[in-house]
């Protein structure tokens, strides 16, 4: 059981009456020869690392390696606890966890690259907020991670997830597409809806450049992870309402990759343009001096 693109993935789901997460898990078991238990427990470990990283930013004082971020998750929690948060609880929590995971990452804490370290807050932010707000079990979250994995795999196989190659749309964009698809399946959406949600995210984040201040995975990466969960929620809501997408996910991946390759080198993780070269960023960074 294997698939090269979203079209084949969808056929496998239809022919065998399986969800995307089930197809992805079966693929891993069949292709690697590992047992169901081994594959499941490895994903359970990933979920447990995600949880620890999301929560430690709220309970601990962390100082980032580059000194550009730190303390954001705590501030978000304090703001939410006043009960006047503008976003509503699901998105507020998702933002808090997504930004918190980036803080942990920037302090050399342990994270799960999802699909990269620079975009590691989006998938856990989304799933952990959904668990708290809607009561999903750990085992449902683990299934959702396999669903997210299918979307990320297609991006790695047929496009790129490297900011240096395709810009931030390839990192946070893909992470957000993974989160949107996973959330859609969790909420009972069909495989078609999952792929429609993933397609919507790539449309909405198309062209986003990678311009980290000082070349470090801190700023604006942390803000972009928060925007990634918001984009995932938007796309999932649109898909779950039964709105189909004109452009299939496979075509959005192709165009994301094509656009990524046309992004100038200065805006692909080199810190030579965009946010990285604003006067304030240069004053804060000091690497060139």
């Amino acid at each position: 059981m294997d698939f090269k693109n979203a079209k084949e993935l969808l056929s496998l789901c239809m022919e065998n009456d399986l969800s995307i997460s089930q197809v992805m898990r079966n693929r891993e078991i069949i292709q690697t020869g590992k047992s169901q238990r081994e594959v499941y427990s490895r994903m359970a470990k990933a979920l447990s690392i995600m949880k620890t990283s999301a929560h430690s930013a709220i309970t601990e004082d962390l100082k980032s390696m580059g000194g550009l971020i730190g303390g954001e998750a705590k501030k978000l929690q304090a703001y939410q606890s006043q009960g006047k948060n503008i976003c509503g609880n699901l998105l507020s929590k998702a933002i808090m966890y997504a930004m918190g995971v980036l803080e942990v990452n920037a302090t050399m804490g342990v994270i799960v690259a999802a699909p990269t370290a620079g975009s590691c807050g989006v998938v856990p932010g989304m799933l952990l907020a959904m668990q708290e707000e809607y009561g999903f079990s750990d085992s449902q979250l683990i299934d959702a991670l396999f669903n997210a994995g299918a979307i990320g795999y297609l991006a790695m196989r047929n496009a790129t997830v490297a900011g240096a190659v395709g810009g931030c749309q390839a990192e946070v964009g893909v992470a957000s597409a993974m989160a949107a698809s996973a959330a859609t399946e969790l909420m009972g959406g069909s495989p078609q809806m999952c792929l429609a949600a993933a397609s919507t995210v790539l449309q909405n984040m198309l062209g986003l450049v990678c311009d980290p201040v000082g070349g470090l995975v801190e700023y604006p990466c942390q803000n972009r992870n928060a925007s990634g969960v918001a984009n995932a929620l938007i796309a999932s809501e649109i898909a779950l309402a039964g709105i189909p997408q004109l452009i299939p996910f496979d075509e959005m991946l192709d165009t994301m990759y094509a656009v990524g390759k046309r992004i100038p080198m200065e805006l692909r993780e080199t810190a030579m343009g965009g946010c990285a070269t604003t006067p304030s960023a240069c004053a804060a960074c000091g690497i060139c001096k």
Partner: protein
Amino acid sequence: MAFISVFEVLGPNMVGPSSSHTAGASAIAYLAQKMLGEKVKSASFTLYGSFAKTYRGHGTDRALIGGIMGYETDDTRIRKSFEIADSLGISYQFIENHEDTEVYPNTVEIAMTGENGRQMTVRGESIGGGKVRIVGINGVEVDFSGEYSAVIVIQQDKPGVVAHITKCISDRKINIAFMRLFREAKGHTAYTIVESDGNLPQEIADEIKQNEFVRDVMIVQA
């Protein structure tokens, strides 16, 4: 196309902040110390490209030190690897090379000396998402990933050595996934790298060493 596991998408589990600059760096150093086959006593790291520019902010240096002490990518001791290395009496230095611009952007060359005096230089590239490639051993260009268990043979470039190596492996009913041969020059030192689907028993190294032209054998388990 090589199989992409779901755990390459949701993974590696790693100490931040960068899959290429932190996880990849520690993975290269981890492979290097496995190849040396004894505890590293001193190491010199030459950093190229983006590694040379941003290694402090990405903890590349701590990750490299952690790697040569045998820490895996998600080992939190990487954060304190300088202090631990100092307490163990391991000496290290970092050399920034900004002149060679033709190399892959995230490249490190590690010159190691082991506790029993064994010396080796390993060159590695961090190619994104935590994936790495070993591209040089003692100045000879090679290519392997560490994703598969590998046996690395240093031999004299003579007829029959490769046949001997493959016989030793097939006698143990191990399937070869990839095999490559590299050499300095005709008749001089050559390197054979065999990557296998299963684990490689240590005895294979002893059996391969029976051939008079084989100088050294390293086994690196995946």
